[in-house]
């Protein structure tokens, strides 16, 4: 295993631990998704994104738009791992007057670019940012993290059309395909497959990887970072609760309730090599 991959896997493990620490403060939440998407965020923040941890507003930064605002717990963990947030601040998660509200709000948190949560917004805003950065001659890239459930929203596809039409090769969409949404499995709520074919038909460069395989993620992001004329999408198949076996099999996983005694068990599970 390369040093690069080993380092990012360690980073992902810490992101999971931070998410569990925050989850314990509230006793429940989008824990399963945070664990599932931790490897993706570790690679994005630890390997792909250009930013300055101590200057989150740096004009030359790559933008990372959390379209799925309810995944804020995952992004806070990644921002702490990246040094944008102080790890100690994570204790305030979701508490009154905290800079870390349960759903992502741009006005509160350093490194949070948009207030997502009303789904289907991230890719549209990314479209404008990418147009604006290109117009200004900036080489910065725009990443946005969507979920597969979010693909139900027609506005996502409006933006997909616009990105391709305008040849926005500075846009990278990352879709967390965990096959689960609020009312149940995605396949039963509203079928969105075949995803690679759909994005390609919309004029995108599309790759699909195991979103919990850091080596595969690194290779895929590297491939999509190569210069091109099309926007790029990385479809990441992730497992809800990844890293904590008794979470991975939990039936009520979308907004996961966790017993008090389970938090420490979960943290210990993270220490066991997969």
């Amino acid at each position: 295993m390369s040093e690069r991959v080993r380092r990012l896997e360690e980073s992902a493990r810490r992101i999971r631990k931070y998410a569990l620490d925050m989850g314990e403060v509230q006793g429940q939440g989008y824990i399963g998704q945070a664990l599932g998407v931790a490897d993706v965020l570790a690679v994005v923040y630890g390997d792909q994104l250009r930013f300055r941890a101590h200057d989150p507003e740096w004009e030359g930064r790559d933008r990372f738009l959390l379209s799925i605002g309810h995944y804020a717990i995952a992004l806070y963990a990644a921002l702490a791992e990246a040094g944008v947030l102080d790890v100690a601040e994570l204790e305030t998660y979701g508490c009154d007057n905290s800079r870390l509200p349960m759903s992502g709000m741009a006005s509160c948190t350093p490194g949070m670019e948009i207030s997502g949560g009303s789904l289907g917004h991230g890719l549209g805003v990314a479209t404008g940012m990418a147009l604006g950065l290109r117009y200004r001659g900036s080489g910065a890239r725009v990443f946005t993290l969507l979920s597969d459930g979010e693909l139900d929203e027609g506005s996502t596809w409006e933006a997909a059309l616009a990105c391709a039409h305008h040849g926005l090769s500075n846009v990278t969409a990352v879709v967390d395909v965990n096959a689960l949404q609020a009312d149940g499995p995605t396949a039963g709520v509203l079928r969105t497959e075949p995803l690679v074919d759909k994005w390609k038909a919309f004029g995108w460069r599309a790759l699909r990887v195991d979103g919990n395989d850091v080596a595969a993620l690194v290779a895929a992001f590297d491939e999509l970072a190569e210069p091109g004329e099309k926007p790029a999408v990385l479809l990441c198949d992730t497992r809800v609760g990844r890293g904590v076996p008794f979470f991975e099999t939990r039936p009520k996983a979308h907004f996961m309730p966790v017993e008090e005694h389970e938090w420490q068990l979960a943290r210990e599970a993270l220490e066991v090599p997969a």
Partner: protein
Amino acid sequence: MSTPTKRLTTSAMIASFADEGQRTAKAPFGQALVRLARERTDVVGLSADLAKYTDMHVFRDAFPERFFQMGMAEQVMLGAAAGLAEVGLVPFASTYSVFATRRAYDFLCLDIAEPSLNVNVVGALPGLTTGYGPSHQATEDLAILRGMPNLTIVDPCDSVDIEQAVPALAATPGPTYMRLLRGNVPTVLDEYDYTFELGKAALLRPGRDVLMISTGLMTMRALQAAQRLERDHIDVAVLHTPTIKPFDTAAVLRETAGDRLVVTLENHSVVGGLAESVASCLAFAGRGRRIVPVALPDEFLAAGALPTLHDRYGLSVDAVTARVRAEL
């Protein structure tokens, strides 16, 4: 043999409310935006497949590299406008009012208004300015948008208002919504000692008997009605309120202090627009006043020719004049 009379038709897509022989300016919004863009390189334009019908084509043709066509997709147009503003540009995004408000509300609200970005949304065909029926008549756009925090709302009267509003909107840091009068737009306010000032009402003429508080194109109707009523020795004051939000409550409270008949005039539903802005302004100040609202009824309107519809729904000068006489 009877003389054939001219049949009034809908002509919906190019409908004009200018009176025959009235002085007009062509595409004042597009022209003003081009003038502004010559001074400010950060001004950009977006359209959702309606550039030609919102006078945005004037900007598109002058600054093609700064114009972004988003297709018939208002949600991504407003989302993209937010993204452009996030990276330091000043977007003007135009479409029909119905689509900006009814269809893309969540995007205007969360992407633009919540972060208070300098995005300027320009909505054509506000109120009853097309005979095309409810799909295109934004009779409730002010009602929809007045509840949105951070948003500035402007309802200009004529080409003078529009030309002066465009640079003012760009100079305002937060988001704005301007109701657009497009095509050949009447030029009226240059005959008055008037300058558009964001957030301010302007007393265009004094009058002892009646106070008309008007916005948008109804200000020109108010001025015409005032001239006619003058012949009957009815002295009418006209207070033009081109900014609906923030509303110039100080001017309204000052002008309504006497016992003149108060008439509000708006090209909008009687629900949630100017009439209710004035009513709440008075009530919140502890003032009880009767208000005569000249406004569109709380119903989906008919399709047809604009002059017919303005007469039917009470917005024509004839209808306004008759209403005031009846109420005095």
